[in-house]
């Protein structure tokens, strides 16, 4: 069967009324939570994971995919109407979008963001569908050492390649790897670092860690900042429809943003921020009147928003085909798969084609739903921005603990939530990135397993890791990605890297 047949088969799964309903609930919840200030896509997905616990795998994963895409759309609304720096993937959108909103052009800014996200999501999801079978074939020639090389590369790009400091990124990553050692060793079944506490034998739940660090850590941090810096919400004045001029200025940035965002998301390059940043600087260079940038240029919203959504779909390529999460959001999505005992990877395409292709088809449908939800109904979401902060954070904390209570109502699990929340708070105060901890926790055991398998095959000969050309190239790339930014920073050219700092996602 060709990809096209598989996709049609997937569409027939996705068009089932119940599945459509799940997708609809997913996109509504995703948009509603994603639009709340301070909540990025990673936290949206982590907070809403418990909603899907009671459903069957297909319905649950499809609802989950809707939540993921919805969270991305919702985030852009927030950054246009409420200048919220700190939420990395939409920082660039806020640059121009918030300026447009202040000039009373919030409607067209929201429209170009929504339509751009739609175009990018559509193209990138189709690209995912057509690319996935080839990557699956490639994955079959990957042995343990190639997987290990790929994971080392992912570790480096997530932690050390971008951001302000190699030291802090690496520290975060190794804290995650240390937490990953807790629990039963997957190869020998021996208990490690459990200190006699039986609940620790299962290891640390990725969702507990992610919710604690993102939700609790963020709430504690915002609370510790007191009442200073009240945010101003820009009202949506005038029509949300774009003029002919807006359209002609937007469509090329949409396509260029998609072309930049998708490959970056698909490579283990750590999140959507990089694509948005590249797209922004490209639009600035290509614009007919670059002096408008910084004062509300529509190209500066259209391009980065498209890049943002395209790389969200791109992230699904390594996740679905190789089982490799390359961002915090993807790590939580992987946890969502694992709650049903499903391991994404080449095998899943063979054992559960209905599920995988149904999921991909649902993404296309969710994307169409989101366009409808976000253009005419945008006023409704804007109302959510006006929730006073005490109620907002009280609700966030209640839902954050609800997830843990629903999955495992034990005091030990809740205490872990509290401890990691405190840790996340401390890391935010001292400027340590959080995403590497989450990625380290979920990828750590996988990398360890592949390394030990590779060494077992080679009877303990470490040079085996560089004897395969693919593995050698991957490890070399990882070394370059680690050392090059350090040299750039040491020579005072690190500003570019700091601007693409991966904070979340």
């Amino acid at each position, binding site marked *: 069967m060709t990809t096209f047949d598989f996709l049609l088969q997937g569409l027939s799964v996705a068009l089932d009324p119940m599945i459509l309903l799940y997708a609809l609930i997913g996109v509504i919840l995703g948009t509603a939570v994603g639009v709340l200030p301070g909540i990025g896509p990673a936290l949206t997905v982590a907070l809403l994971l418990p909603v899907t616990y009671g459903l069957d795998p297909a319905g649950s994963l499809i609802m989950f995919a809707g939540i993921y895409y919805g969270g991305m759309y919702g985030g852009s609304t927030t950054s246009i109407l409420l200048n919220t*720096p700190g939420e990395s993937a939409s920082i660039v959108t806020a640059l121009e979008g918030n300026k447009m909103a202040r000039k009373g052009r919030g409607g067209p800014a929201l429209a170009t963001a929504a339509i751009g996200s739609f175009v990018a999501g559509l193209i990138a999801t189709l690209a995912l569908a057509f690319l996935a079978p080839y990557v699956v074939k490639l994955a079959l020639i990957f042995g343990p050492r190639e997987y290990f090389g790929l994971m080392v590369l992912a570790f480096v790009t997530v932690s050390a390649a971008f951001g302000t400091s190699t030291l802090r990124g690496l520290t975060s990553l190794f804290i995650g*790897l240390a937490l990953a050692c807790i629990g039963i060793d997957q190869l020998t079944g021996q208990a490690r670092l459990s200190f006699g506490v039986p609940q620790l034998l299962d290891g640390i739940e990725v969702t507990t860690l992610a919710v604690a660090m993102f939700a609790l850590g963020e709430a504690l941090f915002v*609370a510790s900042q007191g009442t200073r810096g009240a945010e101003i919400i820009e009202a949506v004045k005038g029509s949300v429809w774009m003029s002919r001029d807006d359209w002609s200025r937007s469509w090329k940035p949409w396509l260029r943003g998609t072309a930049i965002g998708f490959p970056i998301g698909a490579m283990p390059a750590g999140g959507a921020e990089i694509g948005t940043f590249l797209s922004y600087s490209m639009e600035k260079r290509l614009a007919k009147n670059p002096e408008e940038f910084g004062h509300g240029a529509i190209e500066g919203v259209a391009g980065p928003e498209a890049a943002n959504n395209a790389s969200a779909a791109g992230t699904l390529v390594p996740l679905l085909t190789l089982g490799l999460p390359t961002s915090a959001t993807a790590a939580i999505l992987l946890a969502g798969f694992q709650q049903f005992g499903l391991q994404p990877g080449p095998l899943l395409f063979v054992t559960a084609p209905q599920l995988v292709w149904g999921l991909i088809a649902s993404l296309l449908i969710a994307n169409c739903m989101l366009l409808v939800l976000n253009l005419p109904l945008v006023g409704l979401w804007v109302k959510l921005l006006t929730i006073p902060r005490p109620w907002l954070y009280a609700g966030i904390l209640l839902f954050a*603990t609800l997830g843990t209570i*629903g999955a495992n109502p034990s005091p030990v699990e809740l205490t872990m*939530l*509290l401890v990691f929340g405190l840790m996340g708070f401390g890391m935010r105060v001292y400027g340590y990135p959080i995403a590497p901890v989450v990625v380290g926790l979920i990828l750590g055991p996988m990398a360890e397993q592949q390394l030990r398998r590779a060494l077992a095959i080679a*009877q303990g000969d470490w040079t085996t890791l560089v004897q395969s050309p693919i593995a050698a190239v991957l490890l070399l790339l990882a070394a370059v990605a680690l050392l090059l930014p350090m040299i750039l920073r040491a020579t005072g050219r690190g500003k570019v890297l700091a601007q693409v700092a991966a904070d979340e996602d």
Partner: protein
Amino acid sequence: MTGMPGTGRRPDGAAFIIAVLLGSLGALLVREGGLFPDRAGYAGVGPGGMPFLVGWVLMGLALWTAVDALRGTSEAREPIQIGPVLWILGGLALQIALLKPAGFMVASGLLFACTAFAFGRRNLLVTVPIGLVFALGVYGVFDAVLQLNLPGGPLETLMFGG
């Protein structure tokens, strides 16, 4: 990312504490990794290998942090208010303590009120009832509609069944 402007070039006390914490965590991992009997099979790396490696790297990072702190390259930080943080932590501790004996509604409702207090809604006579009603509603939706098994207290059991 906290995004603080200004760079104060002075030795940084907090960074030393972070370095000590990282170093202790690393030492703990190295010690635990060393506890496993040295039967690593064909791979030459047994279950103790990973904690051992991560532990040593953490100790290295601790050293790097300490050196950085001595050179005073870390940035100045905005002061933080500890009161609201303690209120939220207290709410979480209260929830852990009350979840089993009093049920989801009471435990989570009080967490809600404590968090609202931390963010400036100080009137507990208003926030506690709102929190309780909100938590009860959440319980109803998740327990009855979404089939999530939440620990119920007397009132939840009465309203939605056990």
